[in-house]
């Protein structure tokens, strides 16, 4: 509700499409050089191009909201038809995204949401509740329902991760997990060196630790490396969310029996279809709207707190049987 841009003095909007006539669909990821984001953008790109749109893929060089604000301003000036964004901050993009929407640009968030005011809807890669609960189920199975576990997260402010960790804690309240103790949530800040130090500290401070859940790629891979180097395969179990390519060796070696993720290509494609549906007016982003999302089938807009979202399926399980076919994909 704050910092509303004064649309009157902004670029006059003489018909959203000029050069070439094709509507432009922009995708803004968190930062550049991130294979997860690259795959998502690939998915977005092929979906939009199939649907006849022009694609703009952008990300700042650092994962900051400030960098994304600059990019969005530039996209507004270019009069794009839609912006799909994986936000670096829930709230900080609100004013600039509102400005975009006030000029008729369809804004949706993907992967990591911006707040409900800043978007028309969110494309959710998987249900956060399921993401949280499924990891506890997995860890319980790995350690036989008993023992100390710890979480190694990204930064202490990563809203995604924090939400999942909340759901993990809720799941742990169930009686079947009463012998499982969550001893610590550590933060590796998505830095390799820090994640390694944090993992080592966990192992030393809790000699009886049975498992580590790391719901972030850098964290889970770093933990996998530490457990491998210290020869703790089979003694301390590892699961969480990670890129199959990063985790392939640790899943094959058994350090991590299995872990989860979704397919970022599909997530990107879903964002592309959703953006298209918004631009074409097929949906308004209101509850109950439905549309056809290509190979992903029919999608329905459902509630998400104060806003609405498209929800893709459960996270996908990667284990020793299927990792080989995925590790070269992403």
């Amino acid at each position, binding site marked *: 509700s704050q910092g509303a841009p004064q649309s009157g003095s902004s670029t006059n909007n003489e018909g959203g499409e000029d050069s070439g006539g094709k509507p432009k669909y922009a995708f803004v990821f968190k930062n550049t050089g991130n294979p997860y984001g*690259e795959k998502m953008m690939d998915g977005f790109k092929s979906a939009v191009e199939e649907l006849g749109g022009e694609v703009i893929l952008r990300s700042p060089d650092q994962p900051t909201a400030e960098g994304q604000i600059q990019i969005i301003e530039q996209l507004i000036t270019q009069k794009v038809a839609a912006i799909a964004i994986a936000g670096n901050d829930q709230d900080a993009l609100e004013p600039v995204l509102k400005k975009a929407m006030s000029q008729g640009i369809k804004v949706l968030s993907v992967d990591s949401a911006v707040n409900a005011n800043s978007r028309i809807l969110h494309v959710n890669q998987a249900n956060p509740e399921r993401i949280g609960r499924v990891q506890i189920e997995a860890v319980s199975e790995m350690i036989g329902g008993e023992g100390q576990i710890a979480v190694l997260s990204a930064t202490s402010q990563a809203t995604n991760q924090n939400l999942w960790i909340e759901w993990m804690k809720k799941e742990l309240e169930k009686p079947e997990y009463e012998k499982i103790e969550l001893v610590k949530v550590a933060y590796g800040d998505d830095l*390799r060196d820090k994640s390694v*130090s944090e993992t080592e500290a966990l192992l030393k401070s809790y000699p009886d630790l049975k498992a580590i859940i790391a719901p972030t790629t850098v964290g889970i891979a770093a933990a996998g490396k530490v457990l491998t180097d210290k020869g703790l395969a089979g003694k301390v179990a590892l699961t969480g969310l990670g890129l199959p*390519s990063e985790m392939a060796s640790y899943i094959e070696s058994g350090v991590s029996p299995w872990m989860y993720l979704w397919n970022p290509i599909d997530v990107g494609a879903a964002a592309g279809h959703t953006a298209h549906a918004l631009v074409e007016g097929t949906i308004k982003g209101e509850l109950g709207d439905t549309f056809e999302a290509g190979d992903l089938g029919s999608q329905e807009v459902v509630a998400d707190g104060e806003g609405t979202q498209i929800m893709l399926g459960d996270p996908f399980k990667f284990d020793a049987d299927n990792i080989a076919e995925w590790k070269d994909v992403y």
Partner: protein
Amino acid sequence: MPENVIENSTQLQTQVERTSKLASIYKFRELGLLVFIVILSLAVQFRNPSFLSGENINDMITNTAILSILALGMMLVLITRGIDLSIGSTIAISGMVVAQVVSTYQELNPLLVILLGTLIGMVCGVINGVLIAKIGLLPIIATLAMMNIFRGITFKISGGEWISSYQMPKSFVSIATGTTLGINNLIVIAVIIYLLFFYLINHTRTGRQIYAVGSNPDSAKVSGIKEDRILLLVYTIMGGFAGLSGVLWVSKFASAQGDTASGYELTVIAACILGGVSIAGGSGKISGIILGSILLGILNNALPLLNVSPFWQTGIQGLIILVAVIINTLVKRGVDRNNLMRRKI
């Protein structure tokens, strides 16, 4: 003490000896830092007894090895009144290229790989060196610009992809995890480099010329020291170390990313200045940067062990760095004061 008047040479002799003994205490400038490290270690040990366990000490030193190699290079740069902000990017570029190479040529000899990474780093260093020594750019500007450029190139050549553990041959990963004579290779490499450079810095002409250029560039010219060559050398060494560290980094974490070691230059500079290297040039000692690296190593290792809230960690780290340098300064002042008090008037 009018030192240049001799009346009685035996009296003079004793006087000189006394002052030089005093001077040797005084000369260990990082006394305060050492004391601080000891106290800090004891305090951490008190809170978490696994801190001073053999395993943890081994982990700590292993994790600090790369930092200490980089700090050595940075010390040389700082001594010449320079600075190198591009090393984080150099680490990334060398790590990325090397990882791509080993993922294609799995059979490559690890030594060749190390050499390749070092060479890439040296090329980056030479570019910095030419800009600074030959064209005369200010080091902070030249390396700030090259930091962006190297990072951009790394992203370009990686095409946004990472090279992951499964793509790396065992021989490559074991560069960082393997041991020689029971000691982790990273530590071995760091120790060898330190020994070599201790010799270079203190016992060769070139080593001393590095100090001379930083201490007074104008006199260096008058003494016939080729300042530009020394600068070129120093930035090449720094680049080489960064390149080597890139290999070690990627091997240690078994993953190469475009944003590897982003911002790491500040940590390295912090290690140097904590260790008493003056950014005004001319002074800096190996013993100092070892202590500086160790202090940072302890911080990285101990804060997680102490179970400090993640929200407090950054603040505590900043506070400890400030307190450490301030205590070091106060101790130095105390030693100076003590020396003054002993002066006869």
